[in-house]
């Protein structure tokens, strides 16, 4: 399910804490050795190499190899661990954090990494209002930002306006080099800096790899950063691998074949690929890992935007449609009508699981399984609809509401994702069983985002977000003022009581440092979402991937995938 996922800022965040060392790795039988290359595939070309402004998941993954944050999330334990910062202290009230940076870190061009870079990244990039970055949403609490200051060359202090529970995890934010970017920012050109036409040697990070070559529509090559600071147990410099190649393979079927032919070392399987690759494990000398439900969600949502278009003075959604979409029973009926099992069977080849909660079961701690579940039942859905006066009055096969409006609406999704198209076709058919007339139109991703961001002229959408383990990083989706609050974004104040409650939960939970208490908040949030159904969740794919048996120190996990410890992986 690594097909183009909706490219939203959320995604970027969830790719931040990607690489973690784990010294107790059990595969020490072979001695690690240097050299070799790892070949991966990506579905699309990157649109930019700028990790602050780029919103794409695939770029996030690549840039995660080039840049690092102060902390990172361990791919196995999902705990936060030191990265560029070697230690930290926190004040009693939890608002003042002092980070002691590593002193042996150099940028890949040889310039030493210092506290100035951290301060620059936060104060002049993330908190710079001229730069469009979704990172700012994460580090803004109740409209207030952090204060970041340099205590000495290798000490940075963060002063938070309020307590901020996911702060340490948030410190996985990539740090960018001040010495290269300061001038760009002062000229106001950072938004389009590090585009695809940049000379790649100008993109300088502290990560284990650096960009070396980019052939549009063909490949992105990264080479080992010779200045990388991390060392293995024998005190040898990491990483072991010399080169990472991302092949641009737009067509997933071609990617499968390329994997089979040994041209790619790693492939994220769709359900339908499982029967192709699984039986060939031995013969092809690779292993297929199934690490359980993925984080990538698929959901249906209705437009509940109550605003008017400022230019035309017309409501974004006509009144009678808004009446349906804001009616809870309508959404519940829709939830009941979605045949999740068939979707799993057909679209995911049986390798998926139904999603009821806003969090993926793989999220672990914060996942709340005890939320309302909607079993597939057309009858029950029809009963619910009848209760709000929607049924087929004139026996023409299409239902009407009590004012006689036929239930007809558009359903959009992005046409690039074939799996989602198949899913949408099934849902469309399901909804037609309720007597709805659904005009299903696949749109290009650009058209879809413009509808979602600015024109708001849509009725229903099928979308996907990449989820994660930290609920707060979904802040801009769930806060009613968030611009990813897709069903009614950027609300001046919450339109409904349950949206108000979610706002409150998010603001409270982020300040609650006690994990268990925090969990209670987020449990409640998941209950509300399942109850009110702003997003009608459908199914989660399984996270399955195949990796060639040539890597040492490989330790795939549900959270980190196969290469969360890439710098430690070597080729046998």
């Amino acid at each position, binding site marked *: 399910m690594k097909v183009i996922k909706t490219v939203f800022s959320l995604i970027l965040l969830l790719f931040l804490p990607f690489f973690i060392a784990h010294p107790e790795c059990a595969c020490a039988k072979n001695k690690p050795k240097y050299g070799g290359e790892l070949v991966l595939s990506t579905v699309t070309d990157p649109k930019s190499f700028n990790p602050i402004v780029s919103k794409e998941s695939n770029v996030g993954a690549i840039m995660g190899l080039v840049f690092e944050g102060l902390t990172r999330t361990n791919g196995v334990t999902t705990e936060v661990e030191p990265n560029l910062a070697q230690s930290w202290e926190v004040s009693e009230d939890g608002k003042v954090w002092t980070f002691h940076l590593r002193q042996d870190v150099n940028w890949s061009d040889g310039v030493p990494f210092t506290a100035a870079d951290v301060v620059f990244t936060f104060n002049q990039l993330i908190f710079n209002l001229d730069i469009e970055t979704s990172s700012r949403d994460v580090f803004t609490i109740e409209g207030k930002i952090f204060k970041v200051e340099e205590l000495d060359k290798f000490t940075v202090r963060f002063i938070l306006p309020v307590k901020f529970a996911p702060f340490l995890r948030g410190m996985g934010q990539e740090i960018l080099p001040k010495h290269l970017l300061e001038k760009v920012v002062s000229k106001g050109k950072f938004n389009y800096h590090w585009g695809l036409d940049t000379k790649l040697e100008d993109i300088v990070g502290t990560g284990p790899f650096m960009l070396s070559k980019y052939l549009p529509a063909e490949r992105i090559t990264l080479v080992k950063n010779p200045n990388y600071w991390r060392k293995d147990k024998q005190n040898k410099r990491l990483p072991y691998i010399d080169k990472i190649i991302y092949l641009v393979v737009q067509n*997933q*079927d071609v990617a499968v074949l390329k994997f089979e032919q040994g041209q790619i070392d790693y492939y994220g399987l769709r359900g339908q690929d499982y*029967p192709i690759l699984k*039986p060939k494990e031995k013969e092809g000398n690779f292993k297929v890992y199934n690490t359980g439900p993925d984080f990538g969600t698929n959901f249906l949502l209705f437009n509940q935007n109550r605003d008017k278009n400022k230019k035309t003075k017309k409501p974004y959604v006509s009144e009678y449609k808004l009446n349906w979409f804001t009616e809870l029973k309508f959404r519940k009926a829709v939830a009941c009508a979605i045949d999740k099992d068939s979707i799993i*069977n*057909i679209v995911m080849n049986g390798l998926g699981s139904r999603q009821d909660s806003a969090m993926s079961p793989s999220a672990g701690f914060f996942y709340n399984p005890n939320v309302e579940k909607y079993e597939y039942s057309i009858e029950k859905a029809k009963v619910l609809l009848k209760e709000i006066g929607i049924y087929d009055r004139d026996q023409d096969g299409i239902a009407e509401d009590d004012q006689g409006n036929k239930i007809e609406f558009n359903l959009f999704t992005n046409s690039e994702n074939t799996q989602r198209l198949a899913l949408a076709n099934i849902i469309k058919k399901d909804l037609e069983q309720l007597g709805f007339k659904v005009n299903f139109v*696949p749109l290009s991703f650009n058209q879809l985002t413009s509808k979602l961001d600015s024109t708001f002229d849509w009725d229903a959408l099928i979308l996907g977000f990449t989820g994660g383990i930290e609920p707060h990083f979904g802040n801009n989706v769930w806060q009613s003022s968030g611009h990813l609050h897709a069903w009614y974004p950027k609300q001046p104040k919450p339109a409904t009581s349950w949206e108000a409650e979610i706002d409150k939960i998010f603001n409270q939970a982020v300040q609650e440092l006690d994990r268990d208490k925090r969990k209670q908040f987020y449990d409640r949030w998941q209950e509300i979402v399942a109850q009110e159904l702003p997003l009608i969740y459908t199914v989660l794919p399984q996270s399955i991937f195949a990796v060639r048996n040539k890597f040492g120190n490989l330790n795939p996990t549900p959270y980190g995938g196969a290469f969360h410890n890439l710098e430690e992986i070597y080729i046998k």
Partner: protein
Amino acid sequence: MKKSYSQLGKGIRKLKKHGLAMVAFWVLVGLYLSAIFAGFIAPYHYDNEQRSLSYASPTKVHVIDQAGKFSWPFVHKVSQKFDQFYNRIYVEDKTEKYPLRFLAKGDSYYILGMLKANRHLFGVDSQARIYFWGADSRGRDLFSRIFYGGQVSLSIGLVGVTISLFLGLFFGGISGYFKGKTDTLIMRICEIIMMIPGFYLMLSLRSIFSYSLSSLQLYFVIVCIMSFIGWPGLARVVRGMALSLREREFVLAARALGVSDIKIIWQHIIPHSFSYLIVAASLSIPGYILGESALSLLGLGIQDPYASWGNLLSESMAVSQLKFHPWILIPGAFIFITVMAFNLLGDGLRDVFDPKMDIGRKF
């Protein structure tokens, strides 16, 4: 006029001797009939799905029952499971026999768009399903969908070529009859259109129209695009005919008698180019069919749940999946057979009427 029709009759007689062309002709007649009566031939409606039988393999029709005796053909109910590798396997439930029924009752459909009917050529009781050529992802019968798809794919060729013919007759007739600047202008335009690679022109024209169109709208958009691409070829044929005919005695005589230009074009020039047009049309029809298929294959044409052969084939774009359900390539064979039949027929017609003519585009 009379002469041209008797020429046609002679042509048909000659054509009858053309073995392959006649085979092609009857194949086409069969295909078009099957499309017209798709509702009857197909055991299921094109959108009748059985989700639990995703990609069901072609149903086995048994003639020997479990006792080992011959019996009226029957099928078993099938259910789908996943094996350890998540391959779909289909298990027959041998306890119950579902005999193949002719003129079975099933989904209702309209004969020729008017008469409602629910009898199908064959079928089985609704507890079981018969998939002659397997099922698609949502357990819809490919056999049924192919015949329904034929309605779109086959008719687009005819409708498209008809529109092109009108355009071609109009512009070609004018061009050849009036000569001079009109002729030069029209022919330059034709040349330019013909020089642009068809696929690129098709994509450019397709981009004019929104992606969010209903299937009926899309059908007409495709027809318009294909006719636009196709008319210059026909116009050039007509022009050539018109140029040679306008010097012929009967046209000169008609003009001397003061018959109007339009009337001359309509009464003399067009009937005389009739046989050429038939050849030209039958040779260009494959272009329309292929164009529609290509667009639908890329997702720019007919959309699910409606079927067209290109649209049906788009599922096989997932090449790695093909080995699990190779039958979804069958619609491609239908396109192939149709195109081949039109080519053979056109070739036969060309032999009969005019040995030197080459028009039509290939995609």
